[in-house]
Structure formats: C-alpha cells, structure tokens
C-alpha cells in the first residue's frame, strides 16, 4: 500500500518505520526538516518537507495514488483539515486522523474521517490499570 503520513513526531516517525518494515511504500511529511531525525536510520521511504494542508505539497507527496492518509501532527485542526482535503479533494480511500479533543473526535468520526482521540484511549487505559 502507498501510505502518506503527515507529521513526523514520535508517533508519525514510528508508524513510518513499522509500516515500511512490512513492505509498504511510505511518504512522510513535516514542515520542519529537523523532525526527520526521528525516522529510523535505515528508513528508505520518502521524507518530504512541506505543509500537509497545501494541495500542491500533497500532490508532490503522491496523494493521487495513495491508499491511506494519516494525519498525525500536534494540531487537531491541522489534522482535521488535511484529512478532509485527502478525503474530499483527492478521494483517498482511507483517511485516519488523530484528534486530541474527544468532542471534535466524535464529530469528525460521524463526518467520515476515521478519527481517534489519544486522550480518551489513554484515560481509559490508565483507569483500567488503576482498577485492575
């Protein structure tokens, strides 16, 4: 599969590494070149400098042929906007977005973005740990 990941933070970089090991074709985007240091040293995918909310940058990343788009920056709104560009402008079959705010996550989930909230997931995880 061709996967585009927006945001090369700890999570983005780790997903890139894991998926590449499985043989997927990865392009990872970030608007700070410094972030690419987080990628595994043997990463053979494409690391592209640019803003993932810009259609031209997304085209350069090959979004027209992408099977999956993953929005993984720190900004909920940035993720949601990029995800909606991928879905509604470029018709990417699967669009996944991280949204910290549980309310916004719920809303965009009903609007057709596969959204998950680390806040909710982590809170539940910790609660389970405490109660077990």
């Amino acid at each position, binding site marked *: 599969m061709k996967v585009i990941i927006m945001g090369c933070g700890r999570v983005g970089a780790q997903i890139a590494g894991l998926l590449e090991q499985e043989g997927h074709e990865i392009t990872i985007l970030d608007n700070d070149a410094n972030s690419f240091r987080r990628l595994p040293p043997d990463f053979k995918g494409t690391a592209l400098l640019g803003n993932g909310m810009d259609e031209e940058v997304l085209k350069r990343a090959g979004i027209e042929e992408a099977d999956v788009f993953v929005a993984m920056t720190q900004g*909920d*709104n940035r993720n949601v906007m990029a995800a909606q560009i991928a879905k*509604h*402008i470029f018709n990417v079959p699967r669009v996944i977005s991280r949204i910290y705010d549980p*309310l*916004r996550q719920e*809303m965009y989930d009903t609007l057709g973005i596969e959204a998950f909230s680390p806040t909710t997931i982590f809170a539940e995880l910790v609660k389970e740990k405490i109660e077990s």
Partner: protein
Amino acid sequence: MYIIIVGGGRVGYYLSKALLNEGHEILIIEKIARFCDIINEEMGSVCVLGDGCEAATLAEVGTARADMLVAVTGHDEDNLVACQVAKHKFNVPRTIARIRNPQNETLFKKLGIDVTVSATNIILEAIEKEVPTHPLTHLLTRADKGLEIVEVRISPDSKTIGKPIKKVPLPEGTKLALIIHRDRKPVIPNPNTVIREGDQIIALTTPELEEELRANLIGI
C-alpha cells in the same frame, strides 16, 4: 442578529466595531487574554476568552441561538473547524470563514461553509480590474456549481474586431450575456452583433472553458 465572531485579531476587532454600530448583537471568542481585555475595555463586555473551535466554549456563549458565525482567525484550519462545529453541533444557519490560501475555497464550499472570504483573491480581482491589458476578469465564481461569470475585454490588437459574433467560434457550454461598449448602450448579443475595439463582453463559462473562450473572443 446574533453574530459570533471567532478570532479577536485586527479583522475580528474592526468587524465587531462595524457590526456593533449597525446594531447587531456581537460576541467575540479570542484565545489571547491581552486581546480579549483590550476589546472588552473598548467595546464593553463582548469578548470571551477561549477556543472558538471547542464545542464547550461555543455552548457557553449560546451558539445554538446564533444567526451567524464568522471565523476570522489567521489560520485557515481553525476557521474551518470553528465553522464545522457551529454547523454540525449547533445548527448555525450561516457560517463565514476567512481563508488565506485561496485554494481552500473549494474544500470549504464542499464541506458546507456558506461563504469564504480570501483577501488574496480580492486583491487579485482588484488588480485584474485595474490592469486594462488583462483580458479576462472574474466577476462572479460559483465554485460549487462549476459556473463563472467573466468579463473579456477586446483590446486594440484583437483579431475579432469587426467580426459578427456568428463568425467567432465559442466553446460549447459557454454563453455571451452582454456586450458593453464605451459609448453606446449595453446590448444582449445576437449572432449579427459586431465585436468592436474596447468592448467588454460579459460571458457565462465553466472554469475549464474560460481560457478557450478568452482565446476565441480575442482571436488568438
């Protein structure tokens, strides 16, 4: 009308002033406390400190009864989300978003934002109108309908001057609506109307056909 403005920067500030003067009920949501204080001191308590993209903040300010939400922060993504939350969670009848990247117009329209305002495009249109050599001006664009109303100017070097409309091949799907000549009354063109130097031709077209229409009208 009850109008909620997201973003208390320069645009939000002057917009609120104008709307207050017109007698509307205004509420501004601004993230930065300093901006909030300045607005409240000058205009009375009209600014709430908070994030206008958060449903909780919007609920607090009574968004459900708002007639309109206007998002004018400096970030396109924040303006988009504020409008979407207003629409989907609070059924606000009209949402207006400021955009900085003109490309985002299509996306915002697709996602149900009623009006987008792009300073970049407005300046561009002003330049197009000012510069007489620019042969095609966009008068109105309905991106959602794939329709544009454009103005083509017949410059002195146009090859079509003196020709009747029926001799000018027009791309199928375009239509000439009006011809305005410098010193005569505007006419609705018929096949025998002759194109003259200085004519302003108002035409309906699609974005795909505009270039062909322009080229054929000026005869290149």
